[in-house]
């Protein structure tokens, strides 16, 4: 009992320290600032197209939050671990009485907290923009909050993938691979469709395997629904959360296996 409790404390310690470290990364502010700039630009675009302000501000604003949230997740996800490995600060950490998987989980939690704060800041920017456009932003909250929550979950998948790659690869390669996987993840439904049409059962199996291995980004993107004023039901949010949690657990287990076997030469 005590052992589990102290494990939780160690994970919390790693989470706290890594979110602190990330909070001091300049790139974080660059990306958040860029997102706010984009959202602000949406206001100008909206003014140009009379009657379409709401649609344009939401389209551009949510798009910016989503894309930059994922970009942030990949960049920071790689920094969580690979920077520490490349600069060999990991030597000291791994000689402390902490398990390697606890380090991974703690770092992911720290990163997740930071992503949450960033997504919240960007959403605040979007609400301000809506208010500036003269829209009743309070009325939009029930539509917007579920959408950005799901964006956060998306970015968590991207971050976990970046973390997984950085357990065995260099930072450049990890960034590129994670980016590639996330991009293909936007087309993961295609793989399911191909699985139906290909003749060879082996190929069909492979397509299905890809479908499940790739982060299913499109299924978590409800921008269109929000723009058209359709509410996202709680059951959708619940299912999406369950999917993401399952995905994170699998990716973390793989990362823990890779990290456990890694030598620090």
């Amino acid at each position, binding site marked *: 009992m005590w052992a589990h409790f102290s494990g939780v404390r160690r994970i919390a310690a790693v989470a706290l320290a890594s979110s*602190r470290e990330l909070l001091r990364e300049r790139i974080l502010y660059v990306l958040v600032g860029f997102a706010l700039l984009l959202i602000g630009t949406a206001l100008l675009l909206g003014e140009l197209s009379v009657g379409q302000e709401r649609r344009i501000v939401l389209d551009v604003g949510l798009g910016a939050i989503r894309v930059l949230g994922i970009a942030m997740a990949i960049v920071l996800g790689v920094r969580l671990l690979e920077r520490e490995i490349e600069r060999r600060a990991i030597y000291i950490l791994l000689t402390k009485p902490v398990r390697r998987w606890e380090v991974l989980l703690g770092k992911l939690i720290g990163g997740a907290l930071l992503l949450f704060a960033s997504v919240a800041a960007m959403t605040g920017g979007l609400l301000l923009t809506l208010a500036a456009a003269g829209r009743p932003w309070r009325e939009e909250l029930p539509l917007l909050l579920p959408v950005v929550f799901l964006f956060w979950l998306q970015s968590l998948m991207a971050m976990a993938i970046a973390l997984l790659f950085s357990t065995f690869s260099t930072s450049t390669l990890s960034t590129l691979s994670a980016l590639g996987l996330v991009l293909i993840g936007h087309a993961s439904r295609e793989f399911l469709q191909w699985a139906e049409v290909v003749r060879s059962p082996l190929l069909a199996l492979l397509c299905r395997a890809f479908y499940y291995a790739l982060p299913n980004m499109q299924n978590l993107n409800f921008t269109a629904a929000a723009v058209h004023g359709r509410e996202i039901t709680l059951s959708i949010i619940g299912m999406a959360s369950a999917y993401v949690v399952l995905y994170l657990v699998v990716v973390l287990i793989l990362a823990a296996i890779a990290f456990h076997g890694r030598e620090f030469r």
Partner: protein
Amino acid sequence: MSARSAIIVVENLTKDYASGWLAHRRHRAVDRLTLEVKEGEIFGLLGPNGAGKTTTIKLLLRLIRPTSGTVRLFGRLPEDRLVRAQLGFLPEHPYLPEALTARELLDYFGRLFGLSRSDRSARVALVLHQVGIPASVADRPLRQLSRGELARVGFAQALLHNPKLLILDDPFGGLDPEGRRQVRDWLLRWREEGKTIFLSTPLVAEAEIICDRVALLHRGRLLACGSPAELAPPTAQGAVEILARDLAPQTRESLRARGCDVRADRTLVRICAPASAEGWEAVDFIRRSGGHVIAVNPLRSPLERFFEDAVTASGASPA
């Protein structure tokens, strides 16, 4: 010999690094190393750069896996968390997360050891004080610290939880003579407190002063192990270096005739005598001839000479 228990036991430890395309080339960095470190001693792993000291330490800490052989710390596997709770490690260069301040870093590590909030703040303040890091430095991000300050923070994190065993990879690296003297004092004090210290260094003379026992490592092989006095009893034999001024040309010539190596720049003359007896004679001679002796230093310590001989012998008869 003594009844003190062995804290580190290494048997037949071997590490091959794979390199090259497809990892087909193998390079043996540590070769069948066997040694024991006893409780309460300062043990020095000596050897030139590339001898395999850092590799040995990484094997002790299980940062890399041995190709063969075993490591036991406190009678347990090195990855055991009970071992890690008793162990402080200083890496070769103080690699630390640069964005954190020293105080934040130590507080973080204190949490990993399960220290309570009040224990943490007390221990952090204590070790920062012990290594001479003032509060103004402790609250700056580590990337703003000088190399010497980083080295101190490195020691502070190793000491934080008052470990029984310290493993220090090149604790004198990158320090000026004053810094080295201070580290020497710390090491002796920690031994007084009952800690066991395993350190690596290429500085034989430095280790000779403070280590109870040393192991001489060369190309991954153990050449000798024992107390400095056992391996190389102090003698009057060593070569000496004399620094002098105002030497007439004929004085230099007659020093050369006595078998000394004489080199002069515009003001200073450096004379190397083959052994201390000749050295003192040379000093008398220089004084009688109107020259000024500025300093007399032993060129190599007994242990340094022992080491050089051992290396030569091992090169002459490859095992």
